[in-house]
C-alpha cells in the first residue's frame, strides 16, 4: 500500500513537471498568459508530489515496511530513530528522493518570488528549464532508481544502514546540506539558459539569481565542511580530507560557483565577462551532475560496475545534454554576447577578479583532471590507478597561496585604475601586520614556506578587512552617530560587501587551520596493557581498562584512556570499536579531546588481545577546531549577505568610495 502511494506521489510530480514545462512553452509561443499561469501553478503540484513521496518513505522507514526493498536494505528493527530518519539519504534511491523534494522547494520559492513577473519570458524560460530538470529526476525515480520498488523476498528484519552511516549524528546534517547546495544551483543555471534563450544576457538575470546563488553556495560550503568534520570524527584516520573522488565531486562545483560569485561583480559593475559568467554557472550545474554521476553510478568502485544499473547512463546523458546544449546556445548567440567593457589596467579591481577567476577555474581543472583521468585509463586500458595526494598538494598549495594574496589585496583596489600612492596608503599597514606575523611564526619555530606564507597572508588579509571596516565606521561616526550604531549601520548599508568580508575571514581561518594541521601533526601508536602510559608531545595517555556494551544495534567496546598534561588531569576519553550485525569486521569510533590550540585524537586499533593489550593510535593535531569555526564564519557571512540592504542617502554617502562594491 505504502509502495503504491509512494509511486503515485512520484508519478504525480513527474506528470506535473511535464505538463508544467509543456504549458509554459506553448503559452510562451502563443503569448497566452493564462496558459503560462497554469503551467506555473504546476510547481505546487510538483511540490505536493515530492513532499508526499518523501513523507511516504519516512513513514515506511519508521514502521519498518519491509515490503519496500529500500526499507529492507536500509533500516533494521534495531536501528535507532535518528538513523531511521537519516536512512532516507543513506543510499542512492532515497537520496534521489530527497534531491527531488529539495528541487521542488527551490522551484516553489522561485515561483512565489517571481509571481509578479509570471509572464516575463526570462522567468518563463527559467521555469521551463527547472521543470525539465525536475522531470529528469522524477523519471529517474520511476525508472532505474525506483525508491518504492517491492522486495522480491519479504524479510523478517531489515539489513540496517551501512555501519559507517549509523555511527554519528553528523550524518543527519551533512548530506542534506550538500544536496541543498547541489540542487540550489539548478536555479541560477535555469536563469542562465533563460538568458541565452531570450537574448537578455545583460545584467538582469544576475540580479534575479543573486539570492539563490548565495543560498546554494552557503549550503554547499556548509555541506563540505560538515563532511570534513564527519570524516574527522567518524573515520578515525585522523584527517578530514583525502582527495577522494567523492570529496572532489563536491569541491569542483564549489570552486566554479565561488569563481562565479566574484566575476558576477565585474559584470554588474562593468558589463564585462558575460560569456564567462554564463559558462561558470553552466559549468557549476554540469559539475553537480558529474558529481552525482561519479558518486552514484558506481564508476569509482570500478568502471565496469557502470553497466550494472542504468543510472549511470541516465546521468551521463543529462550531462551530455547540458554541456552540448549550452555550448550550442552560447555559439548561437555568438556576437551578441560580446561585452561592451574592457579591462583598463592590470592593477584594478576588475583585473583582480579576473586573476581570482583564473585561479579558481585552474583549481577546478586540477581536481577534475585527477578525478576523471583514472576512470578514463581504466575504461581504455583496463589498468586501475589513482592520483596520489602529493599531486594535489603540489598543485593546490600555490593556487591557495595565490588566492590568499588576492584576498588581501583585491578588496582595496579601486575599479578601473589605481595609483602607487593609493596602494601604499591602503596596503602598507595590513602588509606590515602580515610580515610581522610571518616573522613571529618563524621565530616560534614554524617551518615550511607554504605554511609561513599562509599565516602571513592570512594576517595581511584580516588586517586589511579590519582597516576597511574601521575607516567606514569612523566616517559614519564623524557624522555624529554613536560608534556602535555606526558599526551596525555600515553593515546594513552594504550587507553584501561586509557579508563577503566575513566569508573572507572564515576562509583565512580555514586556510590557517589547513596549513597548521597538515604540517604540524604528530602521531604515535602503541600496544598498552592496563595501567600503561604512552607519551606524546606534552601529553600522557594512560589505559584504564575497557568496557563492552551490547544493544540490538551494535556491540561496542570502549577503552578508557586518561589524558594528562604534566599534573593536569584532562579527563577520560573513550575511543571505541563497534561490531554491527550487518557488517563484516568492526568500525572504530575515535574520541577527540578538542581544544582551541590542538586536538588529542585517540583511535582504538584493537581491543584487548591475548596479552591483555589494546592497540591505540594517538595524534596531536593543531588548530583543527578552527576549520569548523572558519566554516561556521563562512556560513554566517552568507547570512549577513542575505540581509536586505538599507538604502538611505546618508548610508550610501558615507561608505568610502574605496570599499564600495
Amino acid at each position, binding site marked *: 500500500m505504502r509502495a503504491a502511494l509512494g509511486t503515485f506521489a512520484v508519478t504525480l510530480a513527474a506528470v506535473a513537471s511535464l505538463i508544467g514545462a509543456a504549458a509554459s512553452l506553448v503559452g510562451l509561443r502563443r503569448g497566452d498568459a493564462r496558459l503560462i499561469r497554469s503551467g506555473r501553478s504546476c510547481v505546487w503540484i510538483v511540490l505536493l508530489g515530492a513532499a508526499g513521496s518523501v513523507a511516504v518513505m519516512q513513514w515506511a522507514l519508521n514502521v519498518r515496511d519491509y515490503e519496500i526493498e529500500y526499507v529492507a536494505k536500509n533500516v533494521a528493527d534495531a536501528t535507532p530513530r535518528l538513523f531511521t530518519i537519516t536512512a532516507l539519504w543513506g543510499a542512492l534511491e532515497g537520496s534521489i528522493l530527497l534531491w527531488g523534494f529539495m528541487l521542488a522547494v527551490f522551484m516553489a520559492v522561485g515561483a512565489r518570488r517571481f509571481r509578479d513577473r509570471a509572464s516575463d519570458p526570462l522567468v518563463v524560460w527559467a521555469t521551463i528549464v527547472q521543470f525539465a530538470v525536475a522531470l529528469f529526476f522524477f523519471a529517474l525515480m520511476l525508472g532505474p532508481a525506483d525508491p518504492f520498488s517491492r522486495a522480491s523476498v519479504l524479510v523478517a528484519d531489515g*539489513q540496517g544502514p551501512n555501519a559507517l552511516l549509523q555511527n554519528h549524528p553528523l550524518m543527519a546534517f551533512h548530506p542534506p546540506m550538500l544536496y541543498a547546495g547541489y540542487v540550489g544551483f539548478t536555479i541560477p543555471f535555469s536563469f542562465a539558459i533563460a538568458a541565452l534563450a531570450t537574448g537578455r544576457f545583460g545584467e538582469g538575470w544576475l540580479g534575479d539569481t543573486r539570492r539563490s546563488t548565495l543560498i546554494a553556495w552557503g549550503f554547499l560550503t556548509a555541506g563540505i565542511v560538515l563532511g570534513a568534520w564527519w570524516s574527522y570524527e567518524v573515520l578515525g584516520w585522523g584527517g578530514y580530507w583525502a582527495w577522494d573522488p567523492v570529496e572532489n565531486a563536491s569541491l569542483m562545483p564549489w570552486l566554479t560557483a565561488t569563481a562565479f560569485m566574484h566575476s558576477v561583480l565585474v559584470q554588474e559593475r562593468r558589463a564585462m565577462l558575460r560569456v564567462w559568467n554564463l559558462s561558470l554557472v553552466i559549468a557549476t550545474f554540469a559539475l553537480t551532475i558529474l558529481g552525482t554521476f561519479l558518486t552514484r553510478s558506481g564508476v569509482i568502485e570500478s568502471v565496469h560496475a557502470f553497466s550494472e544499473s542504468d543510472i549511470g547512463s541516465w546521468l551521463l546523458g543529462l550531462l551530455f545534454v547540458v554541456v552540448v546544449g549550452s555550448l550550442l546556445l552560447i555559439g548561437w548567440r555568438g556576437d551578441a554576447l560580446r561585452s561592451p567593457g574592457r579591462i583598463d589596467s592590470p592593477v584594478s579591481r576588475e583585473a583582480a577578479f579576473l586573476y581570482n577567476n583564473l585561479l579558481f577555474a585552474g583549481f577546478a581543472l586540477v581536481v577534475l583532471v585527477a578525478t576523471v583521468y583514472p576512470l578514463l585509463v581504466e575504461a581504455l586500458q583496463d589498468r586501475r590507478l589513482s592520483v596520489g595526494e602529493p599531486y594535489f598538494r603540489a598543485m593546490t598549495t600555490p593556487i591557495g597561496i595565490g588566492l590568499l594574496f588576492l584576498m588581501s589585496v583585491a578588496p582595496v583596489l579601486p575599479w578601473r585604475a589605481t595609483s602607487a600612492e593609493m596602494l601604499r596608503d591602503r596596503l602598507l599597514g595590513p602588509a606590515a601586520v602580515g610580515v610581522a606575523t610571518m616573522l613571529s611564526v618563524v621565530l616560534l619555530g614554524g617551518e615550511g614556506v607554504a605554511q609561513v606564507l599562509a599565516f602571513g597572508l592570512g594576517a595581511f588579509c584580516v588586517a586589511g578587512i579590519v582597516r576597511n571596516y574601521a575607516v567606514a565606521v569612523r566616517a559614519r561616526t564623524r557624522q555624529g552617530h554613536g560608534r556602535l550604531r555606526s558599526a551596525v549601520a555600515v553593515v546594513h548599508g552594504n550587507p553584501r560587501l561586509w557579508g563577503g568580508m566575513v566569508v573572507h575571514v572564515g576562509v583565512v581561518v580555514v586556510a590557517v587551520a589547513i596549513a597548521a594541521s597538515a604540517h604540524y601533526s604528530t602521531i604515535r601508536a602503541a600496544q598498552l596493557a592496563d595501567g600503561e602510559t604512552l607519551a606524546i608531545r606534552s601529553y600522557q595517555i594512560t589505559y584504564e581498562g575497557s568496557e563492552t556494551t551490547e544493544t540490538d544495534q551494535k556491540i561496542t567496546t570502549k577503552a578508557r584512556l586518561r589524558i594528562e598534561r604534566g599534573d593536569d588531569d584532562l579527563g577520560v576519553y573513550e575511543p571505541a570499536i563497534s561490531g554491527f550485525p550487518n557488517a563484516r569486521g568492526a*568500525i572504530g569510533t575515535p574520541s577527540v579531546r578538542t581544544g582551541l590550540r590542538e586536538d588529542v585524537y585517540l583511535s582504538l586499533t584493537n581491543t584487548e588481545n591475548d596479552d591483555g593489550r589494546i592497540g591505540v593510535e594517538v595524534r596531536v593535531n593543531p588548530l583543527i577546531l578552527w576549520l569548523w569555526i572558519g566554516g561556521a564564519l563562512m556560513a554566517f557571512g552568507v547570512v549577513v549577505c542575505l540581509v536586505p540592504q538599507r538604502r538611505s542617502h546618508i548610508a550610501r554617502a558615507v561608505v568610502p568610495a574605496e570599499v564600495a562594491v
Partner: protein
Amino acid sequence: MKRGRWALAAVVCVGAIVFMLTQLGANLDFYRPVSEAVANRDDQGTKEFRIGGVVKPGTLEQAGSLTTFDLTDGEATVAVDLDGTPHEMVAQNPNGCIPVIVRGRWEGERFAGRELIVKHGSEYDDADHPYGDAQDELACEVAPVAE
C-alpha cells in the same frame, strides 16, 4: 604592450598546464589485485603501488610495530610486511577476509607495505564482493566480531 601581455599570459598558462601534467604523471598510484601484481613483479621493480586482496585467515601476526600477513585474491598469495598496526577492521576480525589495499613496494618475493586501507563498500552485499569465490575456499568467517 598589449601583445606582450597576451604572450606572457599564454606562457604562464602553458607552463601551468605542463607543470600539472608532470605532477600528475609523477604521482600516479597503480592498483593491482594480488595475482596481477605477482604477474607484473619484474616490470614493477621497486616502484611503489597499491596491492589489493583479502587477509588470509589465520595469518595475521603482530610484533611491535611490524604486522605480517598473507594477502590473497584467491588466485595468488603474497606475504606482506606492514610497517604499522593494521586497521581495526582487520585486527578485530583476522579471519573475516576483510578486503584491503596495501600501499608499498616489492622487496624480493615479499611485499613491504607502509599503509593499509580497508575498502569500505557502500553496501554490504557479499554478491558484490570482488573476491566472492575466493571466500568459500578460504573459509572466511563472515560473522561479525563479538567480544
